[in-house]
């Protein structure tokens, strides 16, 4: 039976907006300024906890590492390389790039095992559509959940497969999302993989922290950051770099997506910088931050079309400049992680 969010969750309505807040909230007051956080060993006992109405709750909560982490580590022991795709900004092409990366890895010579792609964007999963497997669902066996296979060496996992209706909104707060991500890592039977690409939602919040903390023991090879050339986007990516540093994630490099658009008018052929790199773009950011620059992928309307129809752009247009740029990035990533 396919696991479905509907079956899993017989609760009437997790968030009932129309109801007034009559139930006493669990946390009695907002946390104080120097709150060590409920996960901390000092929770409930630190100096700043004195007088906090939640002190008793925090002090009695379970502490220490999550008991599921060894299970995740065991489950992912056969995955050779785990790569995160991150960006602080939305809509810069994380999912597009993740699918390209996965297709690129799957097309490599000398690949021994399949490639996996995991979509941790719970509120806006786009991977299934881009892979053309939107209507599939997950199968459960004794060994765990089986991912959906796109080609014979490319497997995909996303929350979209569990939605009873594909337009349903997943209105979840952080802790619930963390639970699902943990399930994806713990219960999905990935088997032996050469690469596992993890696509993330925009921002630096629950999903990112969870993926990182769950995978820490299993070992993440690093993160590929995606950006567009304009400063509005770079601004958020700088925050993501800061996040990676604070979280101790190695940055494999930065990719500049949507850089330059060639006018399809044959007579014109003018290259416009739709998203102009007024501050030097990703290259400059990479230099400033001392991280590798993996290359620039031009904006090609056919990439968008290929994604809408769930085809592999690399297979459909192998000779386009964008394909070449993507393959170059894939090669650099492979070299950086020391893959085959």
């Amino acid at each position, binding site marked *: 039976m396919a696991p479905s969010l509907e079956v899993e969750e017989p609760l009437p309505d997790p*968030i009932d*907006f*129309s109801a*007034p*807040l009559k139930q006493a909230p669990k946390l009695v007051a*907002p946390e104080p300024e120097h709150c060590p956080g409920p996960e901390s060993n000092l929770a409930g006992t630190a100096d700043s906890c004195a007088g906090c109405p939640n002190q008793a709750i925090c002090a009695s909560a379970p502490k220490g590492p999550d008991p599921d982490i060894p299970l995740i580590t065991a489950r992912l022991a056969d995955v050779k390389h785990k790569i995160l795709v991150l960006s*602080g*900004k*939305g*809509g*810069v092409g994380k999912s597009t790039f993740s699918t390209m990366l996965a297709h690129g890895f799957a097309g490599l010579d000398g690949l021994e095992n399949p490639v996996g792609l995991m979509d941790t964007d*719970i*509120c*806006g999963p*786009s991977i299934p*559509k881009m892979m053309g497997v939107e209507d599939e669902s997950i199968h459960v066996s004794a060994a765990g959940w089986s991912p959906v296979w796109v080609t014979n060496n490319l497997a995909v996992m996303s929350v979209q497969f569990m939605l009873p209706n*594909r*337009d*349903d*909104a*997943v*209105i979840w*707060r*952080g*802790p619930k999302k963390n639970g699902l991500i943990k399930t994806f890592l713990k219960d999905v039977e990935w088997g032996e993989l050469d690469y596992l690409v993890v696509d993330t*939602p*925009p*921002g*630096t*919040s*629950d999903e990112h*922290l969870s993926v990182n903390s769950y995978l820490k023991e299993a070992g993440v090879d690093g993160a590929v950051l995606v950006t*567009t050339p*304009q*400063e*509005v986007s770079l*601004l958020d990516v*700088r*925050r*993501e*770099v*800061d996040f990676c540093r*604070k*979280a101790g994630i190695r940055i494999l490099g930065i990719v500049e997506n949507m850089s330059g*658009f060639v*006018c*399809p*008018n044959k*007579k*014109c052929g*003018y290259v*416009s*910088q*739709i998203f*102009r790199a*007024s501050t030097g773009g990703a290259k400059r950011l990479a230099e400033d931050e001392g991280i590798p620059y993996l290359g620039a992928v031009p904006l090609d*309307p056919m990439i*968008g079309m290929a*994604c*809408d129809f769930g085809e592999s752009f690399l297979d459909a247009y192998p000779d386009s400049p964008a394909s070449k740029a993507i393959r170059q990035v894939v090669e650099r990533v492979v070299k950086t992680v020391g893959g085959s």
Partner: protein
Amino acid sequence: MPLDTVKNIVLVLSGKGGVGKSSITTQLALTLSLQGHSVGVLDIDLTGPSIPRFFGIEDSKVRQAPGGWIPVPVHDAQAPLSPRDSTTTTAQNSIGALSCMSLGFILSSRSDAVIWRGPKKTAMVRQFLSDVLWPDNLDYLLIDTPPGTSDEHISLLETLLKTCTPSQLSGAVVVTTPQAISISDVKKELNFCKKVGLRVLGVVENMAGFICPNCSECTNVFSKGGGEIMAKEFEVPFLGSIPIDPAFVYLIEEGIRPVYPQGTVIAGKEVGSQDQEKPTSFSANGHVSKEQTSGLLVDKYRSCSLSPLFDGIVSTLVTDIASRRAVS
């Protein structure tokens, strides 16, 4: 409650990231202000605040006053600017005051990451709603949201539905781009609105087509028309398609007044400047004349090709909101 005196609250939502929520919010705010309304912009995208950048006030800081925070002013209410374009309604109106609030103003460094889990974000959103001292009798409060349907959205709606009167909470403008990937995420957002009982004021399709600054031919980079079909399917108003305009990006990034090559036609209207022979003088040699960069953002925005489009959208919105008010 500081929200008490706010007349209308409009949310800008989208399930997908990077479709232009902040850019649409900015333009709605500028146009509302041009039409003479006083406007406040609240940015609740905590992990990626872009509103300060869009309004060019990244260096500003929020001031603390007894009872709350004072939002950062973009410009004050002022007399009508010299008319540039007599066909729009903006020419006759005086300009309303515009102020912003964002987490970006509170961070010590612009590249600082805000790595927060849900509960902390919830607390921040609540604080933004309860502790910001918006000017008295604010006509419109626009709320820019992060992508998705998660903590920020739940907290925002919970607080708004609890503290505001139904006539205050006007509804949501949903932003999408035309390609199917984006539409499928935005459908989720429309379902979210349905679920929480938030009225959808309309759908805006952003990035529909790109006008080459060299040959002025329009290309559909992300295809076209998807937003309109989706709006029909969900029976919500379709407000319009907005093309990609590199000049708007220059305006935001560098504060350069938009100039168009002759013959550029957007929405059936000639926007190319007649007297300027040379196409888009900026960026070619890096030299920018003083005249192009001086002046208020709101004044420079009037030269942007997108301004007439937004003038129409905003007029529709204002009439719609006013008529709802009259009924209720």
